């Protein structure tokens, strides 16, 4: 897999994460396998409850310790399994090597602390810089993420920044120690479109300049089309299809991906035609289906789909999908014509 576009910097193998709750065990991630290559952006796409954020947080080991159950799998980074590292060793990775940007910039910044101190803190902690060095570096970082008047801005509090500027601060903090991997969990979802465009532009620019690898978690296929190199589609705790951006958008192989693409209104859509929604609702994570997670909503579901989890079928070096329709005994099903840009 990793041969085409360079080596994998992070490999997640058969990750299974559950949470114990009053309602029972919530099986959030039920076997996710993917890798992240050096310098690429991998988008993990899925709807709420698909497990995409939990999978991303597992890489940083940020899921609540009290009720998280690791049911299996491994996350290999620099030859070590992150799931097995001690919390103390994890401190050397979380921040300096793998950093994260969250959806809501207001909640990820401390409202009672000046922005400068929030950046300087990690510089002192992780890189052992002196106060003066750290302050200089903090100003540099703000300039790097496009915040003018950096010196003055460092003395301000988060509420004095606009939403877009706050997200830039969060990105600056994430970049403080020059991480190799950046995990961005819905980084633009809380922002207006014109601000979203600024932030996406910034991420692309930073990636080019710093050679970072990015895991982008999002539900927005528009954002994916403009920023990602590869896509992993998650549903019901599983990755049901992965491939390059073009493969997923133009030759998707799994009915859930078809449904996802067909249900977005395109700017070019014919208004007299109804959108094609996916009927029903996602599966219950406390009692996940035995077979394919999408079987209950899939218009092409066969008997086996409900009983057994489909294996992956490979379509190219990058493109794989888990669907029984690709079994040699399955009937031939044509991909619906009305999919984004389907050529």
């Amino acid at each position, binding site marked *: 897999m990793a041969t085409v576009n360079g080596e994998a910097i992070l490999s997640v193998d058969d990750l299974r994460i559950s949470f114990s709750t009053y309602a029972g065990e919530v099986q959030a991630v039920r076997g996710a396998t993917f890798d992240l290559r050096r310098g690429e952006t991998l988008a993990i796409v899925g*709807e709420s409850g698909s497990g995409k954020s939990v999978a991303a947080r597992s890489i940083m080991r940020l899921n609540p310790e009290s009720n998280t159950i690791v049911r299996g799998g491994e996350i290999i980074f620099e030859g070590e399994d992150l799931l097995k590292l001690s919390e103390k060793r994890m401190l050397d990775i979380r921040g300096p090597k793998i950093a994260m940007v969250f959806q809501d910039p207001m909640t990820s910044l401390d409202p009672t602390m000046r922005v400068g101190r929030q950046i300087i803190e990690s510089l002192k902690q992780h890189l052992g810089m002196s106060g003066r060095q750290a302050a200089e570096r903090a100003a540099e970082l703000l300039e790097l993420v496009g915040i003018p008047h950096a010196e003055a801005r460092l003395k301000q509090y988060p509420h004095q920044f606009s*939403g877009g*500027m706050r997200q830039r601060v969060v990105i600056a903090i994430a970049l403080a120690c020059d991480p190799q991997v950046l995990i961005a969990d819905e980084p633009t979802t809380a922002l*207006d479109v014109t*601000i979203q465009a600024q932030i996406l532009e910034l991420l692309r620019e930073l990636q080019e300049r710093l050679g970072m690898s990015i895991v982008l978690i999002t539900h927005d296929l528009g954002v994916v089309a403009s920023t990602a190199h590869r896509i992993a589609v998650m549903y019901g705790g599983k990755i049901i299809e992965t491939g390059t951006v073009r493969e997923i958008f133009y030759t998707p192989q799994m009915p859930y991906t078809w449904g996802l693409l067909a*249900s*977005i*209104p395109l700017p070019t859509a014919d*208004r007299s035609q109804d959108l094609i929604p996916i009927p029903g609702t996602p599966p219950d994570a406390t009692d996940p289906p035995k077979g394919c997670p999408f079987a209950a909503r899939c218009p092409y579901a066969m008997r086996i789909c409900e009983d057994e989890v489909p294996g992956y079928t490979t379509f190219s070096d990058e493109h794989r999908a888990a669907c029984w329709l690709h079994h040699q005994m399955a009937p031939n099903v044509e991909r619906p014509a009305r999919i984004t840009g389907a050529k």
Partner: protein
Amino acid sequence: MTEQTQNGSANGRPLLEIKDLKKYFQVGRESLKAVDGITLEINKGETFGLVGESGCGKSTAGRVLVRLYEPSGGEVLFGGKNIHEAKGDEGKVLNRKMQMVFQDPQASLNPRMVVGDIVAEGIDIHGLAEGKKERLDRVHELLETVGLSREHAHRYPHEFSGGQRQRIGVARALAVDPDFIVADEPVSALDVSIQAQVINLMKKLQRERDLTYLFISHDLSVVKYISDRVGVMYLGVMVEMAPSEELYANPLHPYTQALLSAVPIPDPDVELERERMVLEGDVPSPVNPPSGCRFRTRCPYATEACGHEEPVWREVSPEHWVAACHCIT
């Protein structure tokens, strides 16, 4: 679509006439000009889409239209009558004819009431059902209309998914047989596959019941898809208004152009070739908006003159209105 745009003004006057509507909020000693003079008409049976970024005043405008707020200036005529002067029974009738669907179905449904009572609240207030039997029949019918089942009447809101809750919100609005519905970001909190279900439902109901919608959203693709005409707001004013296809094919105002250009298109090849117009900076504060053209602080074509020349709201081609400045000929 076409049948919707054809009627409306044909039979006399539009359903809703909004004239120089203003809504200011007092913030300390200053006033926040949330809506600062918008003029438009909404025809019977059409969907008018209102788009803009957060803080542009689109939600405030929607709320003034259903009498949740008193306007600070201007007037709103519904069927020729000023809605904010209506009192007593007249006011009650207006409350019935104009309904609202909110963004967050979780927050807009009372968690302590069963769905049947939530839906029937308007029926009770307006005395639309005689006796328990008729009330229950109407609730069942409404739930089925929005794609739920009658058994759902006994359940509480938390037992439903987001998409189902939004259907309950729609059922509640329909319960009093309204003419006009303001839908404020009705699908923004929903996943795309569920979004499509709710949009299709709203379109179907409009066809069946000849409803008129004001559809407020920040999602330009959704707005284009559902609306007959679209208005773009920026800092309390309307900068452009046109039939949906026309606005997207031929945006004239620099802000509309920037907004459309910022929307990422879910098609990688299109994205690759697109020239993007990325706006600098943020939206200024509505407490102290820029003089002259409000967009000038972010406008790539701004000149010194923009600081004192107010753009003129004019019709540049049939039904295509724009706040015209020097860059629009």
